[in-house]
Each structure stands twice: as structure tokens, then as C-alpha cells.
């Protein structure tokens, strides 16, 4: 397949013009006809007609006036495609109705996440932040070249031209030209070195409610997910993995499996035994019939309860310092009033709606991958290593991901490597193979949010002012033993273990935050909002306990400690104001709680209102959310991400837990790994702080404060604190 990358990789300062044939192939980078003409692989992908103007790696304009924006980030629900397109289209002054998005190929040179350095990937709520200037310039330079082309055509000065919705105007001569008519001329002009970017006051798309580019296809069933990939001769594989992490295949008997109609082959791979069949149903039946004896010599056999016992003990032993300011131990020792508490957090599965899947077409000299790929160049490298190929021989087609919440971004590329290893064991003969995980595979599959134990102590002086804060965190490191470790782990501290705790914003004279990093055989990973998924709960639940001990209002107590943090204070005040905090306590059986957080430089405060009935059953009625994410690129998507983050976080604190018994995961599917459902979703109100600062992310930060806000609301309603997550099954009672 012809790829755009061949041409634009050339180190030329000149733009290029492509003929119709190549342009069609280019536009079909991932949208070619393997699933029928009605399928849509990326938002609104359709071949551009005729010649194309492609001044940089991020956009193409066709003679049909179409504007194709190339997204280096995966669209997994967070709205990245729409955000990326909005930034480009804004500086380009494009007609939004003619803008479409397609996914970029894996290419660290052109499509690196600038927040990550030299790798292409999506995570840490960085898509908008790292693309902002890059994409504004990409759009602005293209616009400048289209203007230069019009000026040249009409022999008028550039300064006399204006652009609106994809049309260049010359008022003096009453002439106008749509972008498509300028494509050929523009492509012959040099790319400007520099371009003036718009004054935010002139934004027409940014800050408005631009409609998402992916919604129509996600409403009529035509959006293309990996599950939907069909290639000629494609087979489907299911992998039988051990019940305990670290166990390996001792032996297997495939007699019954191969007797199933449709089963083609049963192969052993490093992670287990794969059944390859002509359909999912045949592969599933084959896997059910497969007999595997496991070698558990190196397996993790402990239960999660035993691990937590170990964590509790470690909290009292020496640990590494993640933050030291003043002398917290002395301040607490001398304090007039002391408060202490511990918080326990379980393993959590991501459980995206689309169970993990990948299609691999492996031959002797190439490997082609289709996936909702979140770590393109990492997956490319791991696939190459597994296949025994060079990285350049691996190409990746990034499709829509049916959710991820971090799961598809993993340093070991688990599901991609499995798929490649199965294709290799099958013979690397060019047969496309789709590896499909089931929901049980997903829940059992590891790479969980780590389990953590937090122990906190605070000291107040005789005026009930907070003088000392000591926070000990015990749990596994996400980055240890990955390629991130040498870059990210400094003096034994994995920043993802302590972010949100070591970075505590409250003005406290003496602070000590210590980390005790544990090791065990359960594979762990970042989970939406990463460290702040537990640290924010611990900090915001505990500061509430401290405020209560000080006899202070939880909002006022926080506000006083945030005088030097204007953005954090502003969201706190906005949420409190909109929630009607000043109205005072709620009626009996109801309670209001507040929490504030900073994650990935986005500030979020939430006020939760709960009802607790006589049986202790908790219903979260309303969550008021204030967010400051810098320049709001798309307010409706920001609102949607806050709503979604609240629902996601709420499900986790109320129900989420992966537990192990003798190393075996005790949950299987959505019956035992409960997530939030429609009838449990509160009313959500979102308020966005106006800003012209550079944008930060919204995919994750909305998750952080909801748990503690609800826990604090339950305390307000019942007088009971929550120290073990998830919340007790019967509610707060």
C-alpha cells in the first residue's frame, strides 16, 4: 500500500503535488476497502479527489476543498480527533464542515508526542497540550501559503486578502477563491519559516461548540473498531492464559480443541496456548475444549489480602522521601492536636468496552498491525522484536479504540505482542490473524491500577492551624522494570506513585511524603488519572478529616490553605459557589462534600451531594464540577470529559476492586467487576474557567476529585469516614 510517509519523509522545504491516483491511496491509509464500502475507518475518511496540497505532516487540502487533518493521537473517546482538527482548522480558517480526520502512521520523527519526547503515543492527558503550538503553526503556515497563492494569481498584495470558512477573498476586486482552487499554486510555493498565529480574540472555532468529527459514525454503527476489521482469509485467535500471573505452559492437549469445526491450529506462545480458527465462535469453543497443564513455579500465589497486610507493615518502616519540607515529624510531635488516618486502595481493571484486540498480518519481511493503538512507536518496536523484524518493517493502522483508560498504552505492548507471537507461531505466512480478548480475559488479564496503602498524620497548633503533614504511600511502581524507568524514576521514586501527594498544594509549613515501593507478581499499569486516582482520594479525604478536627468548614479550610495557588483556589470557589455551598448543611440523610485536585496541570474541583437511606445505601444525587484547563478548545468536549470522568471515578470508588485469592483473580465479568450504570449516574453540572493560557488535558483530571468529594459528602450525611475502597457493599453504614 502506498503510504503518505514515503513522500513527506523527504527532507525538502518544498511542498509537493500529488496526482489523483497517489492521493487516493494516501487518503486510504487506513480506510481501504477491507470491510466493505460503507465502513469508515477514521472520521469521515473518503478519498480526496484530484490533486492535494500537503505542506506538512498534519494536513492535506484537496482540489475538492476537502481538508484532511492527520491525527498523531488515538481517538478513544476523549475527543482528540476533534480537538486536533479544531486547532488546525482554526489557524487555517477552514470550513469545519469540510474537515475530516485520519490517523497518522507510526512515525516517531513526525508524530512524536512532544510531551513524551521521542515516542508517538497518547496519554497523560497531553494530546491538546503537546499539539497546541505545533498544530497552530501547521494550520497557519498552510493558510499563509494559500493566501500567497491567491495573491500571486490575482496580482494583489497579501495584506488585502481575507479568509473565511475555506474561501479566500479580495474585497477590492470582489474576487474569491475556495481553497481547492488554490491548491496547485500553493503547492509550488515555499513553506514559510515563521507564521503569525491568531490573537485568541479572533478564534472562530476554538472555544465554540464545534461538533465532534466522529459522532455520526458512532451513532449508525459504521465507526470502525478493531473488532470490525475483516481481511481476506483472516483467522481469529483466542489465547488461553494461566490463572496465576507468572505461570507458564507445562504441557497441553489440543485433541478436543482441534476436533471443533473451524479450528485451524493450536499453537504455544510465550503467554499461553492460542486456538486459531475461522471464526470467533469456533476459536471460543476450541479454547473451552483446550486442556493446558500449567507450571506455577514462578507464579504469584499470594492473595491481595496478604499483600495488603504486608503493605500496612511497610508503612511503619523506613521509606524513600518523595518530598521533604521542614520537619513534619517534629511538627506533628509538638502539635496541640493530632489527626491520623489510613486509606486502602484495591487493584482496578480498566475494562474498556471494547475488549483488547489486534489484527496482525505477518510475513517474512513485514508486519502490518490494526489496533486501537495508543503507543504506536512502542508497539512498533515491541512487535518488531517479537517478529524478528526491523522496526521499519512494522506498520500500524490506528483505528478507533473502544475505550482504553490507559490499558492500551503499555510499555510491554502485551496484546500486540501476543497477536504478533501467535501470527509467528502460525507460520508468519501473511495470513491475517485477529487476536480477540474476551471480557474474562480482560478482567483476569492484569496491568491493573496498583493496590496502595496510604498512611497520613497531621498536626495542628493551638489555633487549629495545620503545621505538619506526613504522608506515607506503599505500593507497586508502574514504571519500574519498563523502558521508562531509567528516565522517569529518580532516586527510587516513581513519580506516578506520588503525584498528587508529593505535589500537595496546601500551604503547610512542614511536609513529608514518603514512598515504599513494593514488588510482586501482579502486572500493573496507569489507569485513568494515574497516581491521582488514589493520592487525591487520600489527600482530599484526609484534609477533610483535619478540617473537621479543626472545627472548620471544609471549603473555607481548604481555601485558606490555597491563597498562593490562584488557579486551584479559583476552581474550588467556583464549584462551591455553583453548588450553593454557602447555604449550609443539607437536610437529614443528605450530605455535601468537596474536593479539589490538580492533575496534568488541569485544575478540577467538585462538590458532591449524596442521600443515604436507613440501610446505609448511598445515592450520589448531584456533582458540581469546576475545571480550569487553560484555553478551552472545545467546551462541549470538556464538559463531556468531566461528566465521563465523574461516572468512571464514581463506579471505581463505589464498586471497583480486583482481588486475588492464592494468586487467582476472583472477578470475571461485569457481574463481579461492577461498574457504574445509568440508574446510578448523578446529575452533573460543569463550569469551565475562562482562560487564554495554553490548553491542558481533560481526559483524565475529572476522575480525581469525585471519590473524595463523595466520601466527604457521606461523612456530612452520616458522620462516617471511608478508609477502605471500594465503599462498603451496603453503602456507608
Amino acid at each position: 500500500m502506498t503510504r503518505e510517509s514515503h513522500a513527506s519523509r523527504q527532507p525538502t522545504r518544498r511542498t509537493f503535488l500529488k496526482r489523483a491516483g497517489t492521493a487516493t491511496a494516501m487518503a486510504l491509509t487506513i480506510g481501504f476497502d477491507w470491510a466493505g464500502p460503507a465502513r469508515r475507518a477514521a472520521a469521515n475518511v473518503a478519498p480526496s479527489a484530484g490533486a492535494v496540497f500537503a505542506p506538512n505532516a498534519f494536513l492535506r487540502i484537496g482540489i475538492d476543498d476537502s481538508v484532511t487533518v492527520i491525527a498523531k493521537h488515538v481517538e478513544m473517546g476523549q475527543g482528540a480527533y476533534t480537538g486536533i482538527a479544531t486547532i488546525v482548522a482554526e489557524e487555517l480558517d477552514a470550513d469545519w464542515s469540510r474537515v475530516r480526520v485520519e490517523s497518522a502512521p507510526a512515525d516517531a520523527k513526525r508524530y512524536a508526542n512532544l510531551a513524551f519526547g521521542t515516542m508517538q503515543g497518547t496519554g497523560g492527558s497531553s494530546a491538546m497540550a503537546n499539539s497546541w503550538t505545533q498544530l497552530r503553526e501547521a494550520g497557519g503556515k498552510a493558510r499563509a501559503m494559500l493566501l500567497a497563492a491567491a495573491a500571486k494569481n490575482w496580482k494583489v498584495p497579501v495584506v488585502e486578502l481575507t479568509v473565511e470558512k475555506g474561501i479566500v477573498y479580495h474585497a477590492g476586486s470582489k474576487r474569491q477563491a475556495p481553497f481547492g482552487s488554490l491548491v496547485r499554486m500553493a503547492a509550488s510555493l515555499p513553506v514559510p519559516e515563521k507564521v503569525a498565529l491568531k490573537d485568541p480574540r479572533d478564534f472562530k472555532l476554538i472555544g465554540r461548540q464545534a461538533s465532534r468529527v466522529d459522532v455520526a459514525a458512532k451513532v449508525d454503527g459504521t465507526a470502525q473498531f478493531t473488532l470490525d476489521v475483516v481481511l481476506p482469509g483472516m483467522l481469529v485467535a483466542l489465547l488461553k492464559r494461566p490463572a496465576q500471573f507468572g505461570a507458564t505452559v507445562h504441557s497441553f492437549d489440543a485433541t478436543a480443541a482441534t476436533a471443533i469445526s473451524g479450528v485451524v491450529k493450536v499453537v504455544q506462545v510465550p503467554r499461553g496456548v492460542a486456538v486459531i480458527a475461522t471464526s470467533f465462535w469456533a476459536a471460543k469453543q476450541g479454547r473451552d475444549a483446550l486442556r493446558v497443564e500449567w507450571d506455577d513455579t514462578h507464579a504469584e500465589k499470594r492473595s491481595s489480602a496478604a499483600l495488603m497486610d504486608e503493605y500496612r507493615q511497610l508503612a511503619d518502616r523506613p521509606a524513600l522521601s518523595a518530598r521533604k519540607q521542614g520537619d513534619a515529624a517534629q511538627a506533628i510531635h509538638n502539635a496541640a492536636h493530632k489527626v491520623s488516618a489510613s486509606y486502602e486502595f484495591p487493584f482496578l481493571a480498566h475494562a474498556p468496552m471494547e475488549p483488547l484486540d489486534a489484527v496482525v498480518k505477518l510475513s517474512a519481511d513485514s508486519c502490518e498491525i490494526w489496533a486501537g493503538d495508543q503507543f504506536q512507536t512502542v508497539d512498533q518496536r515491541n512487535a518488531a522484536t517479537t517478529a524478528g523484524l526491523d522496526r521499519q518493517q512494522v506498520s500500524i493502522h490506528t483505528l478507533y479504540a473502544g475505550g482504553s483508560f490507559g490499558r492500551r498504552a503499555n510499555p510491554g505492548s502485551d496484546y500486540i505482542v501476543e497477536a504478533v507471537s501467535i501470527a509467528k507461531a502460525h507460520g508468519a505466512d501473511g495470513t491475517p490473524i485477529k487476536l480477540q480478548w474476551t471480557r474474562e480475559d480482560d478482567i483476569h488479564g492484569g496491568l491493573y491500577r496498583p493496590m496502595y496503602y496510604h498512611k497520613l498524620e497531621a498536626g495542628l497548633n493551638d489555633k487549629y492551624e495545620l503545621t505538619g503533614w506526613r504522608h506515607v504511600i506503599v505500593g507497586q511502581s508502574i514504571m519500574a522494570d519498563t523502558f521508562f524507568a531509567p528516565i522517569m524514576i529518580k532516586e527510587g521514586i516513581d513519580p506516578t506513585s506520588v503525584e498528587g501527594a508529593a505535589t500537595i498544594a496546601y500551604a503547610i509549613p512542614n511536609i513529608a511524603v514518603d514512598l515504599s515501593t513494593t514488588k510482586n507478581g501482579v502486572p500493573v499499569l496507569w489507569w485513568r488519572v494515574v497516581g491521582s486516582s488514589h493520592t487525591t482520594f487520600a489527600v482530599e479525604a484526609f484534609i477533610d478529616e483535619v478540617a473537621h478536627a479543626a472545627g472548620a468548614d471544609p471549603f473555607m479550610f481548604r481555601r485558606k490553605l490555597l491563597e498562593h495557588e490562584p488557579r486551584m483556589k479559583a476552581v474550588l470557589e467556583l464549584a462551591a459557589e455553583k453548588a450553593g455551598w454557602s447555604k449550609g448543611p443539607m437536610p437529614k440523610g443528605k450530605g455535601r462534600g468537596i474536593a479539589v485536585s490538580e492533575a496534568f496541570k488541569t485544575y478540577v474541583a467538585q462538590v458532591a451531594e449524596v442521600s443515604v437511606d436507613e440501610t446505609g445505601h448511598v445515592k450520589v444525587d448531584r456533582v458540581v464540577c469546576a475545571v480550569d484547563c487553560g484555553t478551552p478548545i472545545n467546551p462541549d468536549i470538556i464538559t463531556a470529559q468531566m461528566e465521563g470522568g465523574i461516572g468512571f471515578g464514581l463506579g471505581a470508588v463505589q464498586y471497583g476492586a480486583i482481588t486475588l485469592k492464592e494468586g487467582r483473580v476472583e472477578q470475571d465479568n461485569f457481574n463481579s467487576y461492577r461498574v457504574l450504570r445509568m440508574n446510578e449516574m448523578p446529575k452533573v453540572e460543569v463550569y469551565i474557567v475562562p482562560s487564554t493560557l495554553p490548553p491542558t488535558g481533560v481526559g483524565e483530571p475529572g476522575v480525581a476529585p469525585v471519590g473524595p468529594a463523595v466520601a466527604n459528602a457521606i461523612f456530612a450525611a452520616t458522620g462516617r469516614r471511608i478508609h477502605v475502597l471500594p465503599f462498603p457493599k451496603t453503602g456507608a453504614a
Partner: protein
Amino acid sequence: MSTSFVLNGKPTTLDADPNMPLLWAVREVVGLPGTKFGCGMALCGACTVHLDGQAVRSCVMPLSAVAGRQVITIEGLQSAAAKAVQAAWIKLQVPQCGYCQSGQVMSATALLEKNPSPTDADIDGAMSGNICRCATYPRIRAAIHAAAQSFKASA
């Protein structure tokens, strides 16, 4: 062994394992991929289709059970209620990752076809079997109310 039924208005005969769940028959045998696989145990609703007008979970419905009956998938939605639902979904920008939305649209359509003026409690009853991990629930609720309004106005 073959099974005959009406799929999206067309008489269809499939030569497939009668125990194969309808989900996989529709996806892999017929080639209609709009209906999604989420749990395989009727716990999440991503695979929702209409069977004789009722919303059912196709992941646990054996192909043999639909013999002689009417099946509609997201690809075959035609009714006025369905059009109102899909229009409201776009207007309120409901989807995020979008994977569960075929099932959500199918459940919402079946609800409106039976109950043109659903209350919040009715929506909870009809929609709580459809999980959305992106938690688009507030928008789904608002979109169902909006669809009900436009559906009634057009009826």
C-alpha cells in the same frame, strides 16, 4: 444445519452452528459489524438487537432461537423512533469512544417504540443494562427525552 429468519427486513437463511450466538452469526456469518461484543454474558448491552421488536442481548441468544422471527440490527434501523433517537444522539453529541453506542441506540429505540413518553425511571429501567464506560449516561438520558419530544411532534 440452517436457520431461517428475517434480518433487517430481508428473509435470511444461515448455514451455521445453531448454538452460535446471534451476535457472531450477524457479525461474522452475515457481515454486519455494527453490533458489538462487550461481555458475552448479557451483562453490558453492547450487543443489543431487536427480536420481534424487543431489545435482546444477541451475545447469549442462540441462532436457533431466532428461527422464523424478525431481527433488526443497528444497520437495519428504519423506524421513526429510531431516526428520532439517532438525531438526538447527534444533536446532544452523546458518543465518546462510541463502542457501546449501537447497543444504547437499540435499547433507546425499543424503549421509545413501546413508551413514547418515558420518565427518568422508565429510562433507568430500560437503559441500566447498557454499560457505557465513558459514562455518557447524562447525555443518553437527555437524548432520550429529546428524541421523545421530536418523535411525539412528528407522530
